[in-house]
């Protein structure tokens, strides 16, 4: 940050002038106990629940427990330097973060303070981190697609703008990768993104930020960061801060995507705070309001009606399971709050099927209404064929003799599995997805060996790009597959097949 010398001098002059003014006079209490990021403060009888208080070392805190003659305060930062007997003053305002376009391309902490090296944030305003979700009147149904660029998701579990879709799976199954791919795919689509890292390793987040920078995605993205070494209070507030930043854009009528990575660590941070505040523990020692914690956060994702600006806020919360147990406490809570889930399986991941999405356990409750017509037409049968394949595959593994029909279905299923494979950080535009899914569902890939499928996909898409770009243009424009267009695609497939020997 460049600070001009006169700027500093003038600031100091101003401070010196105000120094001679009357001493500051504010309502204050006294710290009677401090430790583990929790302070018990005597006095402050007019403190409001959720109000910001300020400690003598300049750190802020939030009043969470209001008791008869003391209040429980969560320290938002380091509690070093705060002593018993120190004054704590009321600020008269709730916790808030800077919002607006000045946040784009920035990495901030849960208080909205910059943690990158790009100087002060030029905030357009401030927004409370806790605010009520849009009401029923303010919303409309989710019906526009939010393309993630991942074939398996856009075809089988489509996400709509304003939807809340959970990404769930064991550790190291590619959950974050899906969130990041979804952000990368918003490039040039006028969707702003917020990535909230909760309790993540700083090295992991540094890698993610580098990917976002290198791909140019940082230009429309804000990263809200609370690493594993940050105080639990900041981990607890990070998703709410990220949501406030995203909400501001939604209320301006823009489309926003927010990824919460991940809410299981958020639940753990909230559990630690609650236990330290001596709130009664419930199941797995989580406090009684752990469900409300996540429901009020995710309820703020919305698709606003036109009278209210028509903005959307799509939320992709991530939850980590232990040994694939999606019936644990936090996963079931969040599954019931969200509009569907993308389930990632360690087995699929280890068998090289990436993204390791299990289409059987993944659902999208908004479903087909958020797909473009062409995709809807192709994806409908795909799901059924895939389910049939899964059933037959279990049966076929016993080595029984199979009739032609069954072995055809098995082969087709294998091809579906192969086509749905996709490399990380390579989101695919929806028109490309439609081209390859068209070839798949019309059995044009039947003659191609499964292991050559991805090579064919690449060659075929390149061929269309070079020789028949109008096909993609037509799909993009109309979103439909007319008979004429279908014939042209078939011709392109036939020609692409001749380019190389895929048998």
């Amino acid at each position, binding site marked *: 940050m460049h600070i001009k010398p006169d*700027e500093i001098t003038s*600031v*100091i002059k101003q*401070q010196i002038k105000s*120094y001679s003014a009357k*001493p*500051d*006079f*504010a*309502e*204050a*209490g*006294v710290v009677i106990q401090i430790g583990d990021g929790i302070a018990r403060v005597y*006095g*402050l*009888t007019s403190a409001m629940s959720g109000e*910001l208080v*300020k400690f*003598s*070392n*300049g750190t802020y805190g939030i009043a969470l427990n209001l008791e*008869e*003659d003391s209040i429980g305060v969560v320290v938002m930062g380091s509690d070093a*330097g705060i*002593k018993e*007997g120190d*004054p704590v*003053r009321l*600020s*008269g*305002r709730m916790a*808030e973060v800077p919002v607006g376009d000045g946040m784009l391309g920035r990495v901030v902490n849960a208080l909205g*303070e910059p943690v990158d090296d790009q*100087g*002060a*944030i*030029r905030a357009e305003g*401030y927004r409370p981190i806790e605010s009520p979700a849009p009401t029923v009147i303010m919303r409309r149904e989710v019906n526009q697609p939010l393309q993630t660029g991942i074939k398996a998701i856009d075809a089988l579990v489509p996400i709509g703008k304003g939807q809340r879709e959970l990404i769930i799976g064991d550790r190291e199954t590619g959950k974050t990768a899906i969130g990041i791919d979804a952000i990368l795919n918003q490039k040039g689509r006028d969707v702003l993104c917020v990535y909230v890292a909760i309790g993540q390793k700083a090295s992991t987040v540094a890698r993610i930020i580098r990917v976002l920078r290198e791909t140019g995605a940082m230009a429309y993205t804000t990263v809200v960061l609370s690493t594993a070494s940050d105080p639990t209070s900041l981990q607890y507030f990070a998703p709410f801060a990220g949501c406030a930043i995203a909400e501001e854009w939604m209320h301006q009528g823009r489309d926003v995507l927010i990824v919460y990575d991940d809410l299981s660590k958020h639940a753990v941070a909230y559990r630690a705070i609650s236990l330290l505040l001596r709130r009664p523990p419930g199941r797995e020692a989580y406090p009684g309001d752990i469900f409300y914690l996540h429901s009020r956060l995710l309820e703020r994702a919305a698709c606003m009606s036109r009278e209210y600006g028509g903005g959307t806020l799509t939320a992709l919360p991530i939850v980590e399971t232990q040994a694939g147990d999606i019936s644990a406490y936090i996963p079931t809570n969040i599954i019931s709050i969200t509009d569907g889930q993308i389930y990632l399986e360690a087995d699929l991941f280890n068998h090289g099927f990436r993204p390791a999405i299990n289409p059987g356990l993944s659902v999208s409750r908004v479903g087909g209404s958020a797909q473009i017509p062409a995709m809807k037409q192709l994806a409908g049968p795909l799901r059924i064929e895939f389910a049939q394949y899964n059933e037959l595959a279990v049966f076929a593994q016993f080595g029984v003799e199979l009739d032609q029909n069954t072995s055809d279905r098995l082969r087709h299923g294998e091809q579906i599995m192969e086509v749905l494979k996709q490399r990380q950080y390579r989101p695919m535009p929806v028109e490309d997805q439609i081209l390859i899914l068209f070839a798949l569902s019309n059995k044009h890939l039947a003659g191609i060996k499964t292991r050559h499928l991805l090579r064919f996909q690449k060659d075929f898409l390149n061929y269309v790009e070079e020789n028949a770009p109008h096909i993609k243009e037509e799909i993009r424009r109309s979103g439909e597959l007319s008979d004429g267009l279908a014939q042209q695609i078939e011709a392109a497939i036939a020609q692409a097949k001749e380019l190389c020997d895929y048998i």
Partner: protein
Amino acid sequence: MAKIENRYANALLELTAENGSPEKDLAQAALVYEALDNPETGAFLADPQIPKREKDALLQKAFSGLIGGHLPGFLQLMVRKNRVGLILPVLSEYMIRQNRRLGRTEAKIVSATPLSPQQIDAISSVIAKQVNMQILTKTAIDPDVIGGFYVLVEGRVFDATIRHKLDGLREYLRKGGSYAHQTG
């Protein structure tokens, strides 16, 4: 839920009002408070193995001739009711409330270096005007405030420390030179 010390303090306040000797009662309460406010006496009184009559005898003997009115009765009652641990909180609550009835309040002045009696007088006369009460001063030294002083009185703080000023400056600079969201 009303706290137990409040109930005992209420009783003492009412007795003082009935007897009409507030200043004398206050001075005696302060004497008892100071005498008992040490860990050894606390440990003796709190020990469950020491019979109540010995605790009672100690208290009566220690304060005989020094305190009169209702205070000896109060100490005896606390021993009998197994509430010896509450003697100090009750007395403290009683003194605060009795002082307030007499238009006095306690102010804690914290400074980086010891203040001269003149400085303390000057500060308390200013504070007295602000809160419209007589001030009983209590001072403390805290080098962390860097310079200046702050006063805690009646649930409010008068802050004139260098630490507070520097904090304001830090926040001002961090926000890129806007006072819009700076807090006092």
